[in-house]
């Protein structure tokens, strides 16, 4: 006979306000198998937990039900308490009478009745709980970092410095990410490349870091501590071992007018190219889409149309026939740091976004986005740092900066604040005024969001010291009128329409997650929000973990982030990974499936539905060692506990521990509506 203790929490007023906790206690008191009931203000508090422990000891309880909040909140807490009191922790379950009851109902009678039902159901479940032992699995102490921007670099360096190997995968030809494109960084105005480049080199040269650029994650199998990751090394057409980065191939390449991604379209590159001079590794990649030779091959020309780079290469490193290759890495933990892209607000839009016809982006050449302005302001950019407008190369005397383009605009598909625009707009206005002393910098803003160390001072400085004109109001239209770009705005403070004849307009467009993040998330079994940002496991308490154990998230792929945030998150993931790697074994919940060999007929339908390949066929022998058949066997190290095998088993020969048929059957029965 079970001796179950039922503990009803008031959660302050959170449960008690709508659920009559005393009535629930009373109702459970005489329930068969219940040996102890108690209600308490805060069961999760220390005295609350003491109460549970004492009751276990005093009453020799065989099971514990805590009727309180969601098990996602405090199941661990109470299981630990049971463990400390000498009760197997898997004999403890939670009845969710807060999220699923008191918070969603108003009527006290209904809520109380439901709370009783919920609690009784779990009591019935616990009667069939079994004392279980946790599972121990080995940990591969190697980390994978996806994305080689500042967040990925930082995470890789922290883990590598901690003494563990890191595989760093970057889809572009060089690491560095968006930070390498920036001119100067707020709020200190230090040169972005000057602080980033040493980190890039350090990552490249670190003995513990294995770098794969021009590579993507193809497939991820396994689970925490034991991932197998397949990486696609895209055909670079340049042998990384042979290339010495001399640049002769670029010199020789005849296709010189390809818009450079690094220059945000404001400069050109060749078809075989190193994205920027400080690239790491300093090894070019051949852009087959734009290469004369490959264009010819696609047209079916019998003879190669070019070959100048190969001719120019003294190391014979160029291989036109190179193909994508795949490598597999054994990995224990994964950090996702895939960063962001800017919302391109032109007419062509991906699903769910609308673009801004009224702002003329993509149609008026002197309407540019923030990243393009970074390149204009960058000493290494296409204008060598001179602010010159794209249409005619003249120095603009009036520049309008528009905040919140795309952001905070639920109509156009992005409801969130992109967080960094207020700061970089202030920076842009400053940089512009520093370079064009007689110029006019006008910024249209809705609110100035400058929460951060030195941030508000910085944005104030743009106004107070550098004379940027800040106008509170959104812009309605931007269009070209002869030589000027007309900006129709409104000053909500002086209550008047404002029309500015600008020479150039810079739009602070929203930050969006990179394309392909949803697909990557699917490979990793992590979830994304409606915008495609990767979901953290808990918005406050587990900000760098995901809902898949062993997968962590850093930087702007989780939400709009500035550099300090991204770096802090990266180091946090580093700490998480190092702590995971600090033990040789991991302890896991014993929620695994177990086969009843006596009734299993070995049809292997279970193996067909197992997403983890955890089930194999195993021969069974008679007493004298003679093989007499086969049954299914579940590898507990690989099993993740979904229970799909159990549902397809016709003979009911698999049981998922912690969710056994008997437990569920009892729960269904407890909800029996016969009165």
């Amino acid at each position: 006979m079970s001796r179950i203790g039922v503990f009803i929490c008031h959660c302050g007023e959170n449960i008690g306000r709508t659920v009559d906790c005393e009535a629930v206690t009373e109702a459970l008191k005489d329930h068969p198998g219940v040996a102890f009931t108690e209600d308490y203000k805060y069961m999760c508090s220390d005295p609350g937990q003491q109460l549970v422990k004492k009751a276990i000891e005093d009453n020799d309880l065989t099971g514990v039900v805590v009727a309180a909040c969601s098990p996602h909140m405090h199941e661990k807490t109470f299981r630990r308490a049971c463990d400390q009191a000498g009760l197997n922790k898997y004999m403890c379950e939670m009845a969710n009478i807060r999220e699923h009851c008191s918070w969603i109902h108003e009527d006290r009678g209904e809520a109380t009745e439901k709370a009783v039902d919920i609690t009784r159901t779990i009591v019935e479940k616990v009667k069939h709980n079994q004392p279980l032992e946790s599972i121990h699995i080995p940990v591969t102490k190697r980390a994978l970092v996806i994305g080689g921007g500042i967040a990925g670099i930082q995470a890789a360096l922290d883990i590598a410095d901690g003494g563990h190997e890191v595989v760093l995968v970057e889809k572009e030809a060089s690491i560095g990410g968006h930070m390498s494109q920036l001119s100067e960084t707020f709020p200190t105005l230090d040169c972005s490349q000057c602080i980033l480049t040493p980190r890039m080199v350090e990552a490249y040269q670190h003995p513990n870091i294995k770098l794969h650029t021009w590579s993507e994650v193809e497939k991820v199998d396994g689970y925490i501590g034991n991932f197998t990751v397949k990486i696609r090394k895209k055909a670079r057409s340049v042998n990384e071992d042979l290339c010495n980065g001399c640049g002769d191939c670029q010199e020789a390449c005849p296709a010189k007018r390809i818009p450079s991604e690094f220059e945000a379209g404001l400069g050109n590159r060749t078809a075989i190219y190193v994205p920027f001079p400080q690239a790491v590794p300093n090894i070019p990649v051949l852009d087959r889409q734009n290469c004369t030779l490959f264009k010819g091959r696609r047209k079916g020309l019998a003879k190669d149309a070019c070959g100048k780079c190969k001719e120019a290469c003294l190391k014979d490193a160029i291989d036109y026939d190179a193909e994508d290759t795949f490598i597999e890495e054994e990995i224990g933990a994964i950090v996702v740091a895939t960063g962001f892209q800017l919302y391109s607000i032109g007419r062509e839009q991906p699903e769910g976004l609308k673009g801004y016809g009224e702002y003329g982006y993509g149609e008026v050449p002197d309407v540019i986005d923030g990243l393009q302005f970074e390149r204009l302001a960058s000493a290494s950019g296409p204008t060598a740092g001179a602010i010159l407008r794209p249409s005619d190369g003249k120095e603009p005397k009036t520049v309008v900066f528009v905040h919140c383009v795309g952001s905070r605009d639920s109509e156009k598909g992005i409801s969130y604040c992109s967080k960094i625009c207020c700061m970089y707009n202030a920076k842009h206005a400053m940089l512009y005024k520093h370079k064009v002393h007689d110029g006019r910098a006008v910024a249209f803003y809705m609110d100035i969001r400058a929460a951060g160390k030195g941030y508000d001072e910085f944005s104030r400085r743009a106004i107070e010291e550098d004379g940027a004109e800040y106008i509170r109001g959104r812009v309605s239209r931007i269009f070209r009128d002869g030589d000027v770009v007309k900006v129709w705005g409104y000053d909500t403070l002086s209550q008047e329409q404002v029309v500015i004849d600008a020479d150039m307009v810079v739009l602070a467009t929203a930050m969006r997650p990179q394309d392909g993040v949803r697909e990557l998330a699917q490979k990793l079994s992590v979830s994304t929000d409606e915008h495609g940002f990767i979901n953290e496991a808990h918005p406050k308490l587990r900000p760098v973990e995901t809902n898949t154990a062993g997968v962590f998230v850093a930087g702007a792929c989780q939400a709009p982030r500035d550099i300090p945030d991204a770096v802090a998150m990266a180091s946090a993931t580093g700490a998480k990974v190092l702590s995971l790697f600090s033990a040789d074994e991991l302890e896991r919940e014993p929620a695994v499936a177990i086969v009843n060999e006596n009734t299993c007929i070995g049809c292997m339908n279970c193996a067909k539905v197992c997403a983890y390949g955890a089930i194999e066929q195993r021969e069974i022998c008679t007493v004298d060692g003679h093989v007499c058949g086969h049954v299914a066997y579940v590898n507990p190290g690989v099993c993740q506990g979904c229970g799909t095998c159990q549902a397809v088993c016709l003979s009911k020969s698999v049981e998922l521990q912690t969710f056994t048929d008997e437990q569920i059957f009892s729960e269904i029965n407890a909800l029996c509506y016969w009165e």
Partner: protein
Amino acid sequence: MTDVAYYPGCSLHGTSREFDESLRAVAAELGIGLTEIADWSCCGASSGHTTDHLLGVALPARNLALAEAQGFDTVLAPCAACYNRLSAARLAIATEDGLAEQMPDILGHPFANSVDVHNAVELLRDASVTIEEKVAATLAPNPLEGVKLAAYYGCLLVRPFEVCGYDDPEQPTSMDEVIDACGADDVDWDMKVECCGGAFSVSRTASVLRLGRAIIDNARSHGAEAIIVACPLCHSNLDLRQKAMAQRGEEPMPILFVTQMVGLALGLAPVDLGLGRHFVDTEPLIARLVQQAAKRVAAEKLAKEEAAAKAAARAEKQKVGVAAGTSGAEGGEAQ
């Protein structure tokens, strides 16, 4: 093509008769049957919905109900204001709680809200391939060939997007497509969707002059020779009021209904298109365009003849050459 129910609206029976005339002429030419809704009534225009939301829905709904009862599934409302009111009513009845139930009682007729509403630009855009073919097949030189025309959509054709929705609200292209189909050159200008002052034509003429002036100036600065409209309000604001807003010595800017433009391209007589009814005289423009077109055609003909003559001469030469060439090639080989 099957007939559509034609809702001319008050303007097309009055101040914008030329829109009605040119639409009928062009529709006949394109093989589109128009059947005027029997006993149609005014849509209420802005006065209706400005005064009372329900009235603003019920007045247009009466006409939708008539079209429905007369067996149509599409109503053509060329006047942009009527189009907007009819579409808005249709949407409101479909989406707002209780309206659909209320309507039969208010109208005194059953009403299932089953009729689609189209505007003239939409109709012509959908027929643009036919227009292009017909223009090409017209014997007379196309006076619009290469002429720069500014498509002016104003408000009511494109906004609100939920109501209209047949084109992009900020950068619409439908009327530009029709302009292109007529062989003319659509001007990329900035005031396509700005308001002309609409219903304030009578009550706040000064506002209309200010707004209309900006529109005409912008079109002119982008090289437009005429502005094409599909809204009687826009037309009257830009045409009737143009004299009052013009500065001394300025060339007047003809304002043409989109149907008139198509009619011209199809070779219809200006008088049949009501082009004589405008306040800004369209005669000089049309005369100039016709003259240009004639010249162009003559020049093309001449060029063609010259080319043909040259080709003939070349062929003649080649014939001789072939005969000579054989021996020449042999000669080459021999060398």
